[in-house]
């Protein structure tokens, strides 16, 4: 059992400090993952908060079939899908906001990804399809295996393998354009 799971259990037992620890440990990764859906760091932050609110209100039971992070990201994904369903029409973002969004995203990247190479890789992924971004993010930055990715994305392992292959091909071509080489591909 990882720390997130034990913290969450404490929260279920009535200790609010447990959820504070979960938020501390998982908020940045969740924001970057959700940003892959909505391509807006502020919306991703709101969705991250909504994900934790869902934990607080519904208090879903965590079963140790997968890691706590896999389970949390699955909830986050469901929150994001709900959001996108209710906001099917994309909202135009003013230019000045786009600049702020960019700087905010860079701040989160810097604090969470830390390594320069990973930050560059994450930015290159920003131009790809949403599904490619998700599968690569979970694999490169969260170190999820294909089974965990399949659980989070609600796909079969086989589908994830195919998706991963196509996503890597797409990423390689993006990186080639910028003259950047990543050893993991």
């Amino acid at each position, binding site marked *: 059992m990882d720390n997130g799971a034990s913290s969450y259990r404490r929260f279920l037992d009535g200790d609010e400090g447990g959820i504070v620890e979960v*938020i501390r440990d998982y*908020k940045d990764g969740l924001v970057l993952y959700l940003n892959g859906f909505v391509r807006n760091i502020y919306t991703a932050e709101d969705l991250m*908060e909504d994900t934790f609110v869902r934990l*607080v209100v519904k208090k879903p039971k965590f079963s140790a079939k997968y890691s706590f992070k896999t389970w949390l990201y699955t909830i986050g994904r469901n929150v994001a899908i709900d959001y996108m369903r209710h906001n099917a029409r994309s909202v135009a973002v003013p230019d000045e906001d786009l600049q702020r969004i960019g700087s*905010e995203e860079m701040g989160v990247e810097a604090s969470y990804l830390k390594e320069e190479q990973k930050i560059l890789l994450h930015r290159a992924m920003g131009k790809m399809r949403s599904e490619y971004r998700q599968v690569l993010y979970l694999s490169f930055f969260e170190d999820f295996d294909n089974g965990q990715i399949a659980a989070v994305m609600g796909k079969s392992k086989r589908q994830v393998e195919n998706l991963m292959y196509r996503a890597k091909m797409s990423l390689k071509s993006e990186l080639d354009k910028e003259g950047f080489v990543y050893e993991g591909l």
Partner: protein
Amino acid sequence: MKDYKEIAQDVLRRGAKELERNKKRQRALLRRGCTVAAFGLAAAVGIGVWYGKKPRQSAAGQYAAVNPAGVTWGKDGGGKGAGDKTSQGNIGLDGMVTGMDGGQGGFTDMDGDPSGYGPVPGGNTSGDSPVFDGETDGGFDPENVIGNSGEDFWPEQEQNQPGEQDAADMNGKFPDGAVGDEVTATQPMEMISSYPEDAIYCYEAPKNGEVFFSVPLSHAMEEYGDAVLYKVVVDLFRDGEQVSPESGEAKLALERVIELGYTVVRESYEEGEEVRHHYMLHATKEQLTEFDAGEEYGYMIRFFGES
């Protein structure tokens, strides 16, 4: 981006608000649910009362219609005299059946019965329409209900004295029950034994293997369905002619009916100075409609006293 502590505070505050909202919503739903349930319950009770009263009202109506003719109904508990019974004179069925073979015995025994059917189609009936109170029957003791007991429940074929209870004599177990006690007092469902009908009907004798319901009984089953028990007379026919209810043949045939799971009561009633018998069936609509006649006999099922 906000600090994780700020985020946690926001999350907990929003969570608390949402929980409070959910509780309010649940309370509102509960209130609405209770209101709807109360209305539903009131409606159900109202309908139940209305339905429950209906058969009694009709039976009471019949009672009022017949009583002026001088019929005395056994309601007095221990009555043994003829006054507790329905007498032929009260019923008044002069010349009701034509085309009857008086020599058949069984059917002529039922002269006091105004059912009006006969082996010859077209037999006419006339006379008043005697009807019984839906809840009382002179000469019937609810204790006498037999069927499914597996015991030797059939009585000896002997003539009862006027006013005596048949089934009480059957196996010596039944006490002399109070004549005319309310049947419904010991029944889980309300029992009806009549249905108001102005018309006079004439029936063809049922062929072997056939079951006929009288028109008033059919109408009663349509109206009340399975909400009540029907206390009906079973007339047995073989090759178009009625089998006497006093005969051993009738007894055997009715034993088969009991084996099928029906409740059969042998009742006595008076015709003038004579005491007659007939077999009564206490059954639901479903039991009546699924009645298996077998191959040997035809069955006519009717209310006692219907015309």
